[in-house]
């Protein structure tokens, strides 16, 4: 077994420890800059991961850990997200009273957890990776402990998170009990052999459903979405961004691996459940977002609806649907991070998070106004931006399946209705920026060079993925092939 297969995770953990240790010697005023160092380090790991290809034998630790195309795709995804979130955290640092270096290193630890999740091929690894992410996020969410809302969000996340973990653990126990293994490959093999009768084993399905509670909590799908708006609103903004992108994507990759690698037969049986969940999630997220006035809460509901769109591709359970999920997530990464970076930068002085406080942004900073606008327009799914092609691919994959199961046509209809509803609130944000009356503050928003670069990177990402979708589509298709 080749330990080098774990090189990305190991370096990331070492980087996290390094950042934590560097805190001991750095004078307080220099600590803020540690974030740049950390993101540069993550950048180096990203470059390394880009140079890595899928090894001959992708497994390690007796097939517990796998480094296939899918894992590699998501590792890169998480690394990009981490870089941007770290840069965002640097801009946010003046609002964190104590322990900014710990904040950076916790982000890195959570990122390491996501990297492990991307490679999990075993329920033991799935459990510990997910718990590493969740426990780290308990701390990250309540990091601004001077703010009551941050603490409240932390406690809510803690209780609902622990509850869903308990469900998940109980579920894993029964999956283990009925199938006799934690390993995805073993379970799939047992499931495929008809004499074992696992497909109709009710206790096995019971366990699987409980496991889905835990994963559903991570991606914030109905009916496990209930925590998301409160936590998104209360958490420090970089944490919210990481929660929206990283944590959700970790849930998605695990969900896909469980559903398509471990229990493909059951997934095929359960399409109706997935369709209903997807439809409800889309509707719930979009409808609740309509009357929102707090921008972070709005994005919380919006992230619920996006989980619904992602589930649409999973319900389709085809290669096209899976690759559409990967494409959609990548677009979502840049889009949502762009929005959160703008929130961090614009609302720095006032601390208000109302949509109306974005008024007159185009006069204060055309760049940020453009970034927010493009992000909202992309989230709403207007061509030619990333969000549009993502939705197009997802809907197309669902339509193909619709020939077999009519319900998918209904699901597509609901998805389209969801898009129409979402236009109202996304464009509401745009309207607030350009026609929202006079800016409360006239002063131009001053941006540091790294901040400008972060915004620009997000914008380039959204536009590139949207205008030239082919490379990413091909990469997603290649990643999905590893499920075959």
């Amino acid at each position, binding site marked *: 077994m080749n330990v080098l297969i*774990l090189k990305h995770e190991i370096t990331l*953990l070492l980087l996290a420890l390094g950042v*934590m240790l560097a805190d001991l010697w750095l004078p307080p005023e220099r600590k803020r800059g540690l974030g740049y160092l950390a993101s540069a380090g993550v950048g180096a790991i990203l470059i390394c991961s880009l140079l890595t290809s899928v090894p001959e034998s992708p497994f*390690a*630790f*007796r097939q*517990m*850990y796998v480094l296939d195309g899918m894992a590699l795709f998501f590792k890169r995804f998480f690394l990009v997200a981490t870089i941007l979130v770290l840069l965002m955290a640097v801009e946010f640092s003046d609002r964190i*009273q*104590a*322990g900014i270096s*710990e904040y950076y*290193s*916790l982000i890195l*630890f959570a990122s*390491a*957890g996501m990297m*492990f999740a991307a490679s999990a091929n075993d329920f*033991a*690894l799935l*459990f*510990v*990776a997910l*718990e*590493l992410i969740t*426990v*780290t996020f*308990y*701390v990250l969410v*309540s*990091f601004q*402990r*001077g703010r009551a809302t941050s603490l409240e969000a932390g406690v809510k996340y803690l209780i609902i998170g622990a509850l869903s973990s308990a469900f998940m653990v109980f579920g894993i126990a029964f999956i283990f*009990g*009925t199938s006799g293994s934690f390993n995805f490959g073993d379970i799939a093999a047992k499931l495929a052999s008809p004499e074992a009768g696992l497909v109709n*084993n*009710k*206790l*096995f*399905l*019971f366990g699987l459903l409980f496991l889905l509670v835990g994963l559903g909590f991570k991606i914030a799908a109905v009916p496990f979405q209930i925590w998301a708006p409160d936590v998104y609103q209360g958490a420090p903004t970089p944490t919210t961004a990481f929660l929206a992108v990283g944590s959700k994507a970790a849930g998605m990759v695990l969900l896909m691996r469980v559903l398509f690698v471990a229990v493909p037969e059951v997934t095929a049986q359960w399409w109706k459940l997935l369709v209903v969940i997807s439809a409800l999630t889309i509707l719930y997220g979009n409808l609740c977002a309509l009357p929102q006035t707090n921008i972070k809460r709005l994005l919380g509901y919006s992230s619920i609806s996006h989980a619904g769109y992602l589930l649409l591709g999973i319900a389709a359970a085809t290669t096209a649907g899976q690759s559409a999920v990967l494409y959609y997530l990548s677009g979502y990464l840049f889009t949502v991070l762009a929005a959160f970076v703008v929130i961090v930068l614009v609302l720095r002085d006032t601390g208000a998070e109302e949509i109306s406080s974005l008024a007159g942004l185009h006069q204060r900073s055309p760049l940020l106004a453009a970034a927010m606008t493009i992000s909202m327009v992309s989230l709403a799914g207007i061509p030619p931006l990333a969000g549009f092609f993502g939705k197009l691919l997802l809907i197309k994959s669902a339509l193909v399946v619709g020939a077999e199961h009519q319900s998918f046509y209904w699901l597509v209809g609901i998805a389209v209705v969801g898009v129409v509803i979402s236009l109202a609130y996304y464009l509401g944000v745009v309207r607030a920026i350009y026609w929202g009356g006079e800016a409360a503050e006239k002063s131009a928003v001053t941006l540091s060079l790294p901040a400008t670069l972060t915004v620009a990177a997000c914008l380039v990402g959204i536009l590139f993925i949207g205008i030239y979708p082919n490379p990413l589509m091909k990469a997603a298709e290649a990643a999905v092939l590893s499920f075959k």
Partner: protein
Amino acid sequence: MENAQAYLFYVFAALAVICAIMVVANPFSRSPVTSAMFLVLTMGCLAGLFTLLHAFFLAAVQILVYAGAVMVLFLFVIMLLDLKEEQRRQVKSLSLVAGLVSVGAILAIFVRSLIATKPGEGALANVEGSTSKLGKLLFTQYLLPFEIVSVLLLVAMVGVVLLSKKDLK
């Protein structure tokens, strides 16, 4: 011998369930301290059940970590926060009924599935949870999760320090 084990099972199981009821729905006291104390007892009973299942190492860990460390932490926090005066708040009957119904439904579905499946048929109970065997597994096949858990403990440590440090520098 068989019978003795069966009796012991029923004793431990009944005790565990009764103590668990006392944790969540103690008719005599709503104090968190009593809940915590009954939870310790439940853990103890579970350790007993573990022993009956020949999981000797885990039984020890259960007592040491759960009853010994985790529950002490709970009690410590309860004492630290001095939570006496909040006992007067009452459980709303509506939420109690709703909770009972949904939890009962889950339990019912579970029991139905259990009856439909009969997982225990033809099972031979012969595995021994000895420390050496577990240790071997832990440090070979399960090394990776083990290491991740160690990182998790580090994160928890850092998190606890950050969250409970008195002064914000």
